[in-house]
């Protein structure tokens, strides 16, 4: 279990206990947090679960797999702290993670 904090575009903050093994994307979808579309359902094929990770977390996250950076090219306003939330699998190590959800996904 890890506490994940989602900052949505309308300046709302929601901190959710997400079970280990789920992704940061699933944590958002299951709790009706707006702004993450996840059109392809977690297949790293659409870039609509794009989030900005709080800088201090960047090095603590699992490295990007082949293809994630390619998909981020397609994301809405990608930045250096962009990740696809479907690729962030929750574990105890991610307890306290904070992500910002972009104003839109496409």
């Amino acid at each position, binding site marked *: 279990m890890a506490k994940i904090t989602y900052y949505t575009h309308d300046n709302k903050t929601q901190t959710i206990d997400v079970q280990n093994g789920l992704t940061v994307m699933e944590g958002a979808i299951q709790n009706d947090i707006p702004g993450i579309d996840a*059109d*392809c359902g977690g297949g790293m*094929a659409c870039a609509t679960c794009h989030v900005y990770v709080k800088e201090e977390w960047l090095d603590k996250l699992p490295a990007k797999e082949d293809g994630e950076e390619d998909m981020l*090219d397609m994301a809405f*306003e*990608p930045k250096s702290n962009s990740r696809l939330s479907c690729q962030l699998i929750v574990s105890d190590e991610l307890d306290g993670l904070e992500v910002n959800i972009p104003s839109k996904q496409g």
Partner: protein
Amino acid sequence: MNKTDVLIIGAGPTGLFCAHQLGIIGLSCEIVDNLDKAGGQCIELYPDKPIYDIPAVPECTGEELTNNLLKQIKPFNVKFHLNERVEQLKKNESRWHIKTSGGVVFDVAAIVIAGGVGSFEPRKFPVKECEKFEGSSLLYSIKDKSIFKDKTISIFGGGDSALDWAIELSNTSKVNLIHRRDGFSGAEASVQKVNELNKQGKLNLYTKYQMDTVLGDKNIESVKIKHDEGEIKEIKSDYVLGFFGLIMQLGPILDWGLNIDKKTVQVNTENFETNVNGIFAIGDICSYPGKLKLILSGFHEGALAARGCFKYAKPEEKLRFEFTTTSKAAQERLGIKK
């Protein structure tokens, strides 16, 4: 006016198999899709990626699955309307009239929405000023490349479309290629070619830059690009091209009076009909308790929806359950000669 029993919206695997099921029970159908080819997400998102969970098919790619489904519905001569998006829906006594973006009109007894996560549309620049030039000097696809001759073109993106067009247009135009990072997702050979052209001065490559804004009055005159570290460059441009892939939008279906929840259409699980009589929804676009977004679920949903359509298409007849293995009628429809 195209008169047929059922209109299927979406030529993905679910829509294609539903066409098969309609054909088996003796109903006619036509299929509309916004893309230029059949296959839906299988073709657009993962044509070369393997799928391992189609029953009795241990492994196949999105493209193989699509081709096999097309082969399976071949006996029914289903008419496809590609590059068309459904727009208007009107009830006409017991039938539905549907009009597409290209002005094609259908007169049908029932509609099956197999639209996946919506129709694919090009992903656009996040910069607001771009809207003003969209369709004239700012484009997301190329129909006539001759307009670019001897002009200055700024191309944004790092995938195959961006690279291929940059290479192609560099023959006749002055090309700037702008991408947000040093790496590209396009084919390695194209990346090498672009680097070569850049070295030879036949193309200007700007990496770690993204669009800042576009400037111009009626047409674009220049584009400002911003480096990761904040530096801004202004480059002269007659045209701006953006290639950021496709995004899925539900589109006009949202206004059809269907019960919609989080971009999906609610259906019953008896025949996958929506809250509107005669309109069915199957595949990724439908939702019900226990819904799994798997291709195999879409096949099941399509089989039931096809039978649900029967009473609207042939109200006087009764549908009898038959197996293709033994049904003479079904085999005739499949064109099987014995």
